[in-house]
Structure formats: C-alpha cells, structure tokens
C-alpha cells in the first residue's frame, strides 16, 4: 500500500509544476501523471462537464491503484473536489485550499493578491477559501491571460516578459499587498520575474509547493510514505504526446523519457 503511486491530473501540462515540487519533497514517491490535453482548456467548460472530465481522469488514475489523487488544475479544483471525494475513498487534494491557507498564514498586513487565468479569477475560488479562514484578510485578484502563452513559448527571461508582468501586476502593487498567490500552475515558471517586479517584501505563494506540503502531511500522517528507492514514473496525455513532452519538460525541469497516450477520451 505504501509504495503505491500518487496520481496527479491536470487539464494539460501546467500540473507538472506540482509534480516537480513533489519530486523535490518526496523523491521516493512514484507518480502517475495525466494531462487531459485533448480537452484543454477546462476554463471555458461548464461545471458539470468539468466534473465529468475530472471523474473520468480519476477513474483512469485508479487503474494504477494510486493511494492519493492530486487535482493539479485550478478550474477542476474549484468545481470537482466534492464529486471526486464522494466517488473515491482515497484522499483527494486540490490546489486552491493549500495556497489560500498558506497566504493567510504568512501575510502580515492582511493584504493578499491573487493572479490567475480569467476563469480562476472570475470563480473567486481563492477569495472564498481565504474568507473561510479569515475575515480580516483583504484579497485582490487580477487575471493575467498573457502569462500562459509566455510560459508555453518559453519566454521566461525576455524583456518583453518583464514589461508584461509589470503591466499586469501594477494594480496589485498599488494595493500594497505583502503576499501574492500564483493561482495558476503555469505561473511558477515566471516566479523569478514576478519576484523582481513585486520586490523582495512581497512573499510569493506558489500553489505547487503548498500542494506538495499537503500531500507530504497527509501521506506521513497516514503512514503511507513510499520507501522505494528508484520509482518509475508514468506520464500520460489524452492527445498526441509530442507537444506534451516538449512543453512538459520545461515545467518539470527534467527529461520525460516516456509518455503514452491515454485512449479513454
């Protein structure tokens, strides 16, 4: 049971930033990753459709006898966690709550910024979660739709990237936030630029690393941390794997030696 894999799914490649953090934190764990690249983006779909996709993705991961499922997608996390928990009896971890909780914990002036895609920002999922923990924290959010294409293009250090980041984040700087949540799994790749723009006094909460903390906490408390030395990870995409591997390696920061197509879609 202990050595069973951790299942992770996302609508595409962004969730690989979560995998990267789990690799770092829990090197003995075997990962089965599924990117639903055939149906990306989830952001434009209805909650019912996203729930259906999420359950199908989880069903696929369950074939590998995973011991925990991480929903490494902001949209699916804000719509499908309850439905997944109802259907599956293993722990299910989403990306929103760990990030929101961490931000409430570390803000000193009670002003937290959130950046994400239009859909995530519009859903107010982070605000709701923050308000759940504290009524004193004021949350301001800003959609940054150009960040995802910049990351997928690999433009992480260009001058144009700096200028775009600065333009998007200016309103948040004016609000004098001291904590900023990266509410999209693509954004950790822009963390150096975002940090440079916001200044050192603004703490950056990277949901990916908060999720890795949460997975670590739950598995350790359950006594289910893996003890295997060289885990063999598996990567799947619901569309052709070439693009998935090419872009995915940037997110993962390491080679994806083998990826397969999942044919259930």
């Amino acid at each position: 049971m202990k050595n069973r894999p951790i299942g992770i799914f996302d609508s595409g490649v962004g969730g690989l930033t979560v995998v990267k953090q789990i690799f770092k934190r829990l090197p003995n764990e075997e990962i089965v990753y599924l990117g639903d690249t055939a149906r990306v983006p989830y952001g434009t779909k209805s909650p019912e459709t996203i729930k259906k996709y999420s359950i199908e993705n989880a069903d696929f991961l369950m074939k590998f006898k995973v011991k925990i499922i991480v929903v490494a997608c902001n949209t699916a996390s804000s719509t499908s966690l309850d439905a997944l928990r109802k259907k599956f009896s293993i722990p299910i971890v989403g990306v929103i709550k760990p990030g929101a909780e961490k931000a409430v914990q570390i803000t000193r002036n009670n002003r937290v910024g959130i950046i994400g895609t239009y859909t995530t920002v519009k859903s107010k999922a982070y605000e709701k979660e923050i308000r759940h923990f504290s009524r004193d924290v004021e949350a301001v959010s800003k959609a940054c739709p150009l960040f995802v294409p910049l990351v997928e293009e690999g433009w992480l250090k260009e001058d144009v990237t700096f200028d775009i980041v600065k333009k998007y984040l200016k309103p948040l700087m004016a609000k004098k936030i001291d904590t900023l949540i990266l509410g999209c799994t693509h954004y950790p790749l822009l963390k150096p630029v975002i940090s440079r723009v916001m200044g050192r006094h603004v703490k950056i909460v990277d949901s990916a690393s908060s999720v890795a903390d949460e997975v670590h906490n739950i598995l350790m408390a359950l006594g289910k941390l893996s003890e295997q030395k060289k885990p063999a990870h598996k990567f799947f995409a619901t569309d052709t794997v070439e693009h998935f591997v090419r872009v995915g390696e940037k997110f993962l920061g390491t080679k994806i030696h083998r990826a397969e197509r999942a044919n259930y879609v």
Partner: protein
Amino acid sequence: MTEKKNDKKKILVIEDEKDMSYAVTLQLEAKGYEVITAFDGMEGLDKARMKKPDLIILDLMLPKLDGYKVCRMLKFDEKYKNIPIILFTARAQDSDKKTGREVMADAYITKPFKPAALLDKIQELLALS
C-alpha cells in the same frame, strides 16, 4: 463492554482538512482512543465544552475561528484550562510557536509529523494530567 468503553481516553481532533482528520483518527483509534472530530473552530469550541475530552488536537488554520482563539478561550476558562492541547503548526513557522505559548498550548506538533511522534506526545500529556 460498556465499562471498557468508559475507560477509553477521549480525544477531540479539531482539523478542517478532512483527509488529515481521517488520518489522525485512524492512528488514534488503532491505539484504543475514542475520537471526536470537529471541522471548524466554532464546532471545535462547542465540542470541547460539551464533550469534555481528555485531550485536544488543534489545527491552527481553521475556518470560522482560528486555532489560537479556540486555544485561548479554553485555556483562559477555569472549567476547561486543564484539558491538554496539542497545536498543529506548519513547517518552519517560529512565530506560530511564540503565539502558541502566549495562548498556553501544552505542546506543538509540526506538520508533517510521524504518527509515532503524535502518539508519544499524547501519552506524555495524558500521563501528566
């Protein structure tokens, strides 16, 4: 059978993260403790007052009422101040421990924790009380 049940020490687990609460409950029940759960600070405070547990495990980050407030309200109340409280704190947050001392928590467990560390701490506090 009923008598045996009354001998069981009762532990209140106040933790909003359902999977974490479940994990802790499993470990405690396996050691023969009776477990009561609460998933937010208000519910936790109510259950602490009504069910009179022998020990409380309290997460810091809780909806409705945070762990510090729950701890303070119990520890500054003559009727409940003797119930030992273990605070769950997050990794490397020294300020948590400082505030924890101010609200008179009896012990801290930093997440992630090994089940054995929690069980040892519980035993130690129950032996003292």
